[in-house]
């Protein structure tokens, strides 16, 4: 894969280690780099570093007292222009009537991973 300017870097924000590891294993085959963060703070640290993530998968419910994925994604998309496609993959059933700006799609777990992959790689 091209590892120059067009490198595809996926950031997965998921508080559950088993889900995060399964996602990373799966997407490693399709992205140049797959990074894993279990908290919003870790995710922000990765977003500010190199390589800049181009795609993002974020869980919706990240734990007690933590803003939900829809709010975080919306904020990060505005802050980090390198992000081309951002989606929510949620264990809680959410079907928003309108997606907040910056959120491209919402998938509910368990989702067909090939659909998620195709959606991400389309951008």
């Amino acid at each position, binding site marked *: 894969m091209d590892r120059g300017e067009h490198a595809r870097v996926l950031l997965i924000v998921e508080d559950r280690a088993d*889900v995060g590891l399964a996602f990373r294993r799966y997407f490693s085959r399709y992205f140049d780099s797959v990074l894993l963060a279990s908290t919003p703070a870790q995710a922000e640290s990765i977003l500010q570093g190199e390589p800049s993530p181009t795609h993002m998968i974020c869980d919706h419910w990240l734990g007690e007292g933590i803003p939900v994925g829809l709010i975080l994604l919306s904020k990060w998309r505005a802050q980090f222009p390198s992000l081309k496609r951002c989606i929510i993959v949620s264990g809680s059933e959410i079907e928003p*009537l309108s997606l907040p700006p910056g959120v491209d799609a919402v998938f509910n*777990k368990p*989702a067909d991973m090939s659909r998620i992959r195709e959606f991400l790689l389309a951008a």
Partner: protein
Amino acid sequence: MVQSNPKAILIGIGSLVAGYLAIGYVPAIASLAGLRDPWIPALFAILGAFCSYLAWRHQATGPIGSTCMLLDTALYTSSLTLAAVRSEYPFSLGFSIALALFLLAFPSRVYSLTWLIALATTGPSVVITALWGHDATVALVVWAACSLAITASYRTGQQRALVQQNLRLRNALGTADQVAEHTMETALAASLLDIGHFLHELRNLRAVEQTNLQFVREEGKLEGDVLEALDDAIAAQDKENALISEAIERLRRKATPAKKSFSLHDVLSRFVHEQPEGLALTLDFQAPPFQMQGDPRHVLAVLSNLIRNSQRAGATQARIALEATANAKAVALVVEDNGPGLRESQIPELFKPFTSYGEGLGLGLYLTSRYVQLLGGQIEGENRPSGGAVFRILLPGKPV
């Protein structure tokens, strides 16, 4: 009389006075009735009418209203008793029967028995009959009427006490109902939490399984029976997912049995119309009439919770608005107030259960968000730039 109004007073007392004057001054009748000085009972009746009018003006309350309420009865009974003792049989008997009918029809049915009421309704008649009465039959009728009036008035008092007891009992039952409802809400919230956590865990575990199975499948290194076994496992998992989704859907349908079509405009108008005083509430329709599916009581519950929160927070004004959105199949229901607004730290956790920032269990906004979910909508809350809190609820449906 408490139940009087100027028109009734004018008609009733006008007829009585006219009757006195006719009986006293029309020669053919006057010779039979023998009513002496008919202007005296007429004057008492007119004074009674004046007192009735004053009592009506003061709604029978306060020093003037209460005094006039007692005086008018005393003056009317005096008027009829005077007519009875100052006329000849059979007119004297007629007036005493009229007095009896008056006593039994009005004061004893309206007033509970007290010393003052007893004195005002029966005192003048008893005294007048004792001092000036000359006919034993008249005296008998008047005193019997007075006794019956006191008995009836006593019963009126008893009935009033029963009604009040009933009212207190109903209030107590209402309070018990509220406590029961509150307990059920708490139990419901706890059950929903349990089910929610279970489903969340289940979905995550299914996601791990599915992702890993698809990873192995897409590796492309398997063949023959091994590949077939993996495909069977993936297919079985798909069926399992479908079964779980179906079960969740069934549960959801059971949780929302009363789905029907209703007009959001009608529900909002009804809510604003039924609101008690204490908060200036305005309704602003900025979207065309909107029809939605679900239980209208859920919309009312959402509004009740939000408005109650506004009142508790000290807001004096609130506005409910219905606004169109970019999505033709959704409408925005906005509820905003002029209260102190939400704490910044509160905003990310607004709809989480058991997060109370004041009195209460912290379930109000959680249940509000559940009701919104049952309606297929979504809710968010924030502070208005000009002060106060604003909740924006997106609801699905269609314009009419």
